[in-house]
């Protein structure tokens, strides 16, 4: 190594950015070169001087006092917001009150209790006598109206049930609720089991068909307009929509997938790990960080006892898929984010977008920039909004990318 080369690398050396071999080369040079040795001594002196700056500066105490006041008053104002602390405290107070009342009751004894009840009855009787004609009418009509309302709701709700659904057997035999099925129907709450030779198609009202493949086991959890729901427990299904606005949700492990349109498959392996693969249209996938959309050509995994993982392209590189897996299930953290960014191509930007709510602010900025390099955010999407992982903005950007990728 020449002195010039060493001079260039000295800062990397002192910052510990060099690999072992480069480090050894520099050290070997420094041992034999006074000029470069003086330079590294100069740099070390510089760092010693830098250390003279205090590590932390004492913050004024008023900051935390003011912040505490603001935060607590804000929390009290938030309707149904982050006021659980006070809800918790209220709950504690209620419990204390109950304890106190119980104690009081036991101290008063049964006779005291009956006296109190009698007073209430006496007062009530007096009250009945003093009711006017209009009040009487209200008194009788109100319960009737309430009962009629309930009855109407139950009738309306009952009409939504669309069970049973038709089953069309392609090959083999269908076992519904453990029995050989001869009716060609499946009702709410019933299961459908197919052996290795059997394939069936279920017609979902207002939606389309669900092809249930061999060695599969599904349950019709709910057969009701607006809430049709199938649970896939084993094997695989393929959903083919014929409606623009489908009415079907699929339960996989503990996740509820909403069919938005198109064609998709759900495969569950022996370890109960599921793979959702979208051929056309898109799905809404729930996640601990808010739901995301799974577009055509993308897939995601839902490992047993886990929430859905990050979506990736069906034909993405294996290195990317492995890194996404590490990110989702093996605490890949910031390193995984960096690796995914470096592997991802233009078509993988929906993967990066779906990662935003799950990473730190700093990583969000990196992801934002990486995506924006390929797909500048639409006008209604701001950097700050993405930094806050605003669901609406993420969705708008997702729509824009999907549209451009088409």
């Amino acid at each position, binding site marked *: 190594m020449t002195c010039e080369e060493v001079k260039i690398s000295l800062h990397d050396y002192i910052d510990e950015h060099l690999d072992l071999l480069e480090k050894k080369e520099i050290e070997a040079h420094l041992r034999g070169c006074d000029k470069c040795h003086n330079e590294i001594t100069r740099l070390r002196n510089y760092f010693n001087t830098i250390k003279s700056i205090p590590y932390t500066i004492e913050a004024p105490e008023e900051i*935390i006092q003011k912040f505490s006041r603001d935060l607590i008053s804000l929390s009290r104002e938030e309707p149904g917001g982050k006021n659980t602390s006070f809800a918790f405290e209220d709950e504690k107070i209620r419990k204390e009150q109950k304890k106190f009342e119980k104690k009081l009751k036991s101290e008063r004894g049964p006779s005291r209790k009956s006296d109190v009840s009698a007073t209430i009855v006496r007062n009530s009787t007096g009250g009945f006598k003093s009711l006017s004609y209009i009040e009487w009418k209200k008194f009788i009509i109100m319960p009737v109206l309430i009962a009629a309302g309930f009855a109407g709701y139950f009738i309306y709700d009952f009409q939504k049930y669309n069970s049973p659904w038709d089953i069309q057997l392609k090959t083999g035999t269908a076992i519904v609720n453990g029995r050989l099925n001869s009716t060609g129907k499946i009702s709410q709450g019933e299961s459908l089991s197919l052996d290795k030779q059997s394939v069936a198609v279920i017609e979902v009202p207002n939606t389309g068909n669900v092809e249930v493949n061999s060695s599969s086991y599904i349950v019709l959890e709910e057969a009701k307009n607006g809430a049709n729901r199938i649970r896939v427990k084993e094997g695989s299904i393929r959903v083919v929509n014929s409606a623009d606005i489908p009415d079907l949700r699929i339960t996989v492990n503990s996740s509820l997938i909403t069919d938005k349109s198109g064609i998709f498959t759900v495969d569950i392996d022996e370890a109960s790990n599921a793979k959702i693969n979208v051929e056309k249209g898109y799905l809404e996938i729930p996640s601990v960080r808010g739901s995301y959309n799974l577009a055509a050509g993308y897939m995601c995994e839902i490992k047993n006892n886990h929430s859905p993982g990050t979506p990736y392209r069906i034909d993405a590189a294996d290195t990317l898929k492995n890194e996404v897996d590490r990110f989702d299930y093996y605490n890949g953290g910031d390193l995984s984010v960096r690796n995914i960014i470096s592997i991802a191509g233009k078509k993988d930007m929906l993967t990066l977008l779906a990662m935003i709510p799950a990473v730190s602010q*700093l990583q969000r900025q990196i992801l934002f920039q990486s995506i924006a390099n390929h797909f500048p955010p639409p006008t209604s999407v701001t950097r700050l909004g993405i930094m806050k992982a605003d669901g609406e903005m993420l969705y708008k950007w997702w729509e824009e990318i999907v549209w451009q990728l088409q």
Partner: protein
Amino acid sequence: MKEENTNYIKYLVDLAQSGRPRAFIELASINLNNIFTVSYRLIYDYKIAEEVTVKTLMRAWETIILFEPSDSFALWIKNIAVEYSVDELFQRGSRMEQRVRRSGTRSDEDRLENLILKLPVEDRIIFILHDLEGFSYSEINPYFRDMIIDELKTIVIRTRNYLMENLGL
């Protein structure tokens, strides 16, 4: 810049994420000096650093639900402070150079601080984040999207050389 959360921090984060303000206040107290320090070093104005610290804490409270517990809380909240401070600096940066100390004290610390204050805004931010706060180049990069890592490195080296020369090293 790797920092781990202690069990106590994890516990407080968990409570704060479930909406307990008092747990968050405790987290804020623990990290207050670090937040204030980075804000003050970048902005070099006691009052504005105070404002930035309060804004940082409020923003952290609003977004605590998005914090990934496996990440370092100290680093996460510090990043918010840096983000606000950098925004503030770019808005007021041109006036910062006038804050150079005029006092007669000539300790190494004072001289160094004066030299740092004389740096151009971008150079100062990069230098402070890298050499004083321990951020890596890839962690600084998002604040300077138009620069590549090598440019950041060049700025740090140039700043070091400038400081060494002026400190008589």
